[in-house]
């Protein structure tokens, strides 16, 4: 297989993180293709749940949105959104909530609302959608995003979805069923969170990326794991699935 793009690496690393997970709440965009890849590789039994009101989707094509008709045909259950959010998400059935972010801080707090001032924003972003309640109620939160000093920031402009708040102990004190963000995957590497401080830690860099690249694309003094790994290369199978089956037109992974 030919060399891969940064977006392909991002999708592959996101998919691999789903190994062993049972029920995954799939967000719009990159998570969509990452879970499709996981379902075909490391997590064949994973149940996909979409805020549009689908549980146990088996899409016959790559869905172009989280409300695509291919998610319903052949699914285990289609239901109202009130049922999905109350019984499945708030009810505690979701293992992993997969979120994107426009801005992320060192504690995994997420902004998808505005860049700039709320009342007169520089950029008006989409807002929460279901992200706010996913971040609180899903057992774990995975964040998938492209990394830069503008997206990994010291201070987010708006807290749409809570991460580890200001530190690890704070979320536990709230008594939420959601344990908070556990994995962040970017086009540069894979991150976890320090169990004591709740702060993000670089665990692995993707092949071709250096620690310095990750540090340069981070707006705070980035912690790096002592036993920093290098992400194994995408396999031929992973790349073939992405290129031939999941995203032949390169809609998701062109970058």
């Amino acid at each position, binding site marked *: 297989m030919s060399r891969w793009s940064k977006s392909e690496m991002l999708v592959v690393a996101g998919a691999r993180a789903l190994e062993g997970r*049972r*029920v995954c709440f799939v967000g719009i965009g990159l998570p969509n293709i990452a879970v499709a890849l996981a379902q075909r590789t490391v997590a064949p*039994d994973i*149940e996909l749940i979409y805020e549009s009101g*689908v*549980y*146990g989707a*088996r899409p*016959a*094509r790559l869905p172009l949105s989280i409300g*695509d*008709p*291919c998610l*319903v*045909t*052949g*699914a*285990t*259950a*289609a*239901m109202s959104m009130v*049922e999905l959010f*109350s*019984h499945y998400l*708030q*009810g*505690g*059935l979701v293992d992993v909530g997969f979120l994107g972010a426009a801005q992320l801080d060192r504690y995994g707090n997420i902004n998808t609302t505005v860049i700039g001032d709320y009342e007169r924003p520089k950029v008006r972003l989409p807002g929460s959608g279901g992200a706010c309640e996913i971040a609180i109620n899903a057992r774990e939160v995975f964040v998938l995003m492209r990394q830069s000093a503008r997206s990994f920031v010291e201070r987010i402009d708006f807290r749409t979805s809570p991460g580890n708040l200001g530190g690890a102990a704070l979320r536990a004190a709230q008594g939420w*069923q959601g344990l908070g963000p556990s994995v962040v995957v970017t086009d540069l590497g894979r991150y976890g969170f320090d169990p004591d401080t709740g702060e993000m830690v670089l665990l692995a860099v993707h092949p071709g990326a250096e620690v310095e690249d990750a540090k340069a694309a981070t707006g705070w003094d980035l912690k790096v794991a002592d036993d920093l790994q290098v992400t194994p290369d995408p396999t031929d199978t992973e790349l073939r699935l992405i290129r031939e089956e999941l995203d032949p037109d390169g809609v998701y992974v062109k970058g």
Partner: protein
Amino acid sequence: MAEDKVATMRDAVAELVRDGDTLAIEGFTHLISFAAGHEVIRQRRRDLTLCRLTPDVVYDQMIGAGVARKLVFSWMGNPGVGSLHAIRRRVEHHDPAPLELEEYSHFGMVGRYAAGAANLPFWPLRSYFETDLPKVNPNIRPVTSPFGGEPVFAVPPLRPDVAVVHAQRADAAGNTQIWGLTGCQKEAAFAASRVIVVVEELVASEVVRADPNRTLIPGIKVDAVVVCPRGAHPSYAQGYYDRDNRFYLEWDRISRDPEALGGWLDEWVHGTATHQEYVDKLGAERWAELTPAPALSGSVDYGDYR
């Protein structure tokens, strides 16, 4: 491959229903799992807290058999017939022992299951105003709206240890579909820690997936799938068999007399090893009378999108 959860009723009850549990066998007139109730009696469970909107004949049988110490409910009767005499003896005469009652209205019970399913600390509703129910049940409390201060009432979540749901069909993974009256079975199942689904028919996963809007409970909430045709008798399964009103009328006579009740349990519950024996004992003629003519829903098109 999805997990295969198919089990016998004996094994499902032995493994999942424990002495002292809070147990909900739900179903409003429709799809009441008498077969599960009978197996609980056969296995001589004790000190159960039984929950149900309408403790009807199945709970009169179970309480008559001595499996329960408490009843959480909203309407207690033999629907269309009269009283539940085994329960009344325990309430009115403490015969053979008192029975603790915790009482709501239907919407209160429904709200309790809904709060349990939704993991909410309370469920608000416009009920109970100016009645005596909150006076006798401290779990019915006023709550004030943060928007304008309007008072409504609230009930707390009900989270049974075990919920039993009888359904027309499920696949081996427990993905369950029901049509007709669905009562509060969905909420009870989502609220419960353990769920037993009892079905008229075990179907291929593809049958469930052909009509995802008809799915009531996903397999991920289900611990055991028991295949038990006619397991709802004398209750009914829409499209499969009718309610056996003759039995409901007969029960009035049986349950008035503790000895007759004991005899009935000996003959029909302890005297049958499985529900299939009970079904056979009722006889083919009785089942023929209870079988409706078909009335098909028609099919809708979900579209094949590739």
